[in-house]
């Protein structure tokens, strides 16, 4: 899932301040953290209350889109809702915000979330963690399904740096050493020989900006 976090409400209030009629568009695409219709409605209520305190009387309309990153889906969901809207406040990740902006180039489209990373959700612990940087050269097959590019603080490709203590990263003791995790996983699978293979430095040219599906 693309993991985002809500922007502070005063920042959002500042950004929507010039407008009165605002459409708040939720996104159901990545389910965690929830950014669907409930969050859209909650946000409208909070902004209305906050607006009143600033002497501003917003008119919000709320809706949600199955996946804001899909321009076809977004267009068909939002077009009928757009009537009279002076701005769109999007609850999606940066991709969703830009989809709407491209679909409605005359309208200001404002993000309500800060986009952080591609990650996974641990509902039990209430944590979201990064798992993928979209490097374009996936090497998970050779690292026991653990990504060193994201999970090693230094992004090392050929084993641990040597700075880890008790399995924790020297940059941040709350973080597991990715290479130690990789070693343990491969050891368990009896595939430690995979580590003998040298990996050349990361090729940033592989980070594609456009693909044909």
């Amino acid at each position, binding site marked *: 899932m693309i993991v985002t976090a809500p922007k*502070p409400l005063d920042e959002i*209030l500042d950004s929507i301040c010039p407008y009165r009629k605002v459409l708040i568009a939720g996104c159901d695409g990545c389910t*965690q953290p929830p950014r*669907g*219709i409930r969050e859209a*409605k909650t946000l409208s209520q909070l902004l209305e*209350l*906050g607006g009143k305190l600033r002497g501003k009387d917003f008119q919000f309309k709320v809706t*949600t889109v199955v996946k804001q990153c899909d321009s076809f889906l977004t267009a068909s969901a939002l077009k009928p809702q757009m009537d009279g809207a002076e701005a769109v406040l999007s609850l999606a990740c940066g991709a969703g915000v830009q989809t709407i902006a491209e679909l409605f180039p005359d309208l200001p489209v404002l993000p309500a979330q800060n986009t952080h990373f591609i990650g996974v959700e641990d509902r039990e612990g209430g944590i979201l963690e990064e798992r993928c940087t979209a490097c374009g050269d996936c090497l998970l097959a050779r690292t026991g399904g653990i990504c060193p590019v994201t999970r090693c603080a230094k992004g090392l490709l050929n084993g641990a740096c040597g700075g880890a203590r008790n399995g924790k990263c020297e940059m941040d003791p709350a973080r597991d050493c990715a290479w130690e995790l990789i070693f343990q996983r491969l050891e368990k699978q009896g595939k430690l020989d995979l580590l003998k293979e040298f990996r050349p430095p990361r090729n940033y040219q592989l980070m594609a900006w456009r693909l044909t599906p």
Partner: protein
Amino acid sequence: MNKMAPPKDRAQVEEVIDEASGKVYLPPCQIACPIGMDIQRTHGMIALLPLDAQEAYDQIIRMGDEIYQKNPLFPICGYICGLCEAECNYKDQTGTIRRRMLLRFLSDYYLPYLETKPALASPTKEKVAMVGGGPAGLMCAYILSKKGYRVTIIERSSELGGALRYIPQYRLPTNIIDTTLNNLVRIAHIDVKYGIKMGDGEKTLDDLKNDGYRAVFIATGTLIPRPLTIEREPVVGVELDGVVFGLNLLFDVNQGKVSPQLFQGRRVIVVGGGNVAFDVARTARRLGGDVSIVCLECEEKASKDGIPADVEEIEGGSEEGIGITYSRGVEEIIGEGGKFKKIKCPQCTSVFDENGLFNPKFNYSDVVYLEGDVLLVTIGQAPERTFYQQEGLLDERGRLNIDQLTLMSNRKEGVFIGGDVRRVGFAAEAMRDGMIAAESIDRYLKGKNLKSGREKGHESAPIPSRENYKPQPELVWAPVEERLNFEPFEKGFSLEQAVEEAKRCLYCGPCRSCKACVALELQPEIPEIELDKDLCISCGNCAFYCPYQAVKLDSPGGVSFDLAYCKGCGLCVAKCPAMALELENWERERISDLISQLSSEVQSPKILVFRCQWTVCPPRDGEFAPNIRTIDLPCAARVDNLHILEAFQKGVDGVLVAACPEEDCHRGSGSREAQRLVAKLKERLDQIGFEDRLHFCSVSRRDPEQLDKELRQFRQRIEAVVSQREGK
């Protein structure tokens, strides 16, 4: 919520049947109870009793009336039965819910009222006879009388109660039996004929037929004490002076035929390891004896040869100075001058064989002699079968020939047999036979099929879990020096203790087979969850947060609800990001309407309280002060940020969320989740300048003043906020 008194039948329990297996879902305690008492329901009701005894009284009597309908002997069960406790899901945590003590609590309130309880309508239908006035016969008579049959109990002794009359008075006081049974006879119009013996040239079943009885239920119990044997041969020496059957002692003591100092200065040996043996030993101790027990079984209760008596009996006996010699049999009773002197006890190496059959093995080279003045033999009872033989009710191997499902004799139509004579067991098991026979007799006399639809399997729902398990209350017994008499020594629960104990209950069973909340008019009916599949985004939040495993994730997408497990807390509704779920009776719209209504009528500074309905009972009228209004929710879990914000939008100045303390939460996680929701929302409200307007508090019914106190403080805060705002 705005509540309307539900019609009576809506509060009646329903059977929750699993469609796939056809099995009936029930809490394990209720499955364990031979007569299937609605245990969870009474726990729910006791948990919500007001703490003022006067206020609680009417509710307790109503509860008693309801229990009485199913079990007219419940005031007795509260003293002697704890079969349900053995299956309680709390057992493996901090100890079972003390159901027996809770039932006794109700019984102690209910018994004085029983004297004034109105009788049933006079029966007019066919005459039915019960032979034997013990728990089985009484139960059968009561149910048949309720169905309109004219019932007669034929009792060979001079009083009703059967085996109940053998229970020592320190456990079950005579007045409890007398009050319960005398009133039962009056209420159910039971015609009791005392001193009539069946068989042996006296009355026969044909005589009963000629007297106009259309069906007979025979439950004559097990009157004959089992004699001591070794290697299947009678033990020699039983004729010696001083060798007595324990059962006879119990009966004589209860009849007042025995001197209170009978065993003063004498050494008494009791043979047997069951509860009755302990009754005998502790009775002998109360008659002044120096008592010890010898039994075949070993000390480790959990092993296959473990002592069968209850832990409470063993502990109680030990406190009273009764020693136990484990793993010893009696090979020979030795006398001197015709008087009992000692027993020869070889070591018992095994009691039950690999097939689980009673087949004791001894090591005769390891022998001890136990000396005493009195030997009380209490190793079980057997039925008196002559009458059954004379009536041709036995099969060729001398066993009762009956249908085990309907209890009707395979030999004689219209004759039903049950209770201890069928299988020696607990009083409640005999009562179950009475229930089964009553149903069979009713069907028989109406010419209906005796068997159809009667075979039911039971299944327990998944066990709800808790973050905190509360400790089990200790039983309070009088100190030993004060209890060596026949007064009951166990202290009953006070109202407050009963409420606390009932609140520990996990409510393992389905809501529909309980409905305590409906009966108490907390809600008009058990709410159902409604899912709008078109809105669902398959995020799985409902399945993840459900405290009861009532939601299943379907593959490839979507969810389905098992309403047998759902307890209607509404947590899934509050957690659904797609707003695809609704909780019946607590629909979003309905709460919104209430918010509009209350926020327009309440005076400034306006305070709205979202309150878990379990925090205060009976629910107050929702008004604390002119500026405070309350909305009751099924659980704090249903508190919804949309509703809190809506209240602010509609001009409410402060919102208070009142939930049970986390450890008291009926739903396990409801209170905690509400607290989290409030904390998160507060953070965001702070960002827009709405500080201090929202507050979470946990209020306990143990401290009814607490909510008032919280409200006073919150009100001061809101007043300050409002005056500051107006000053600006």
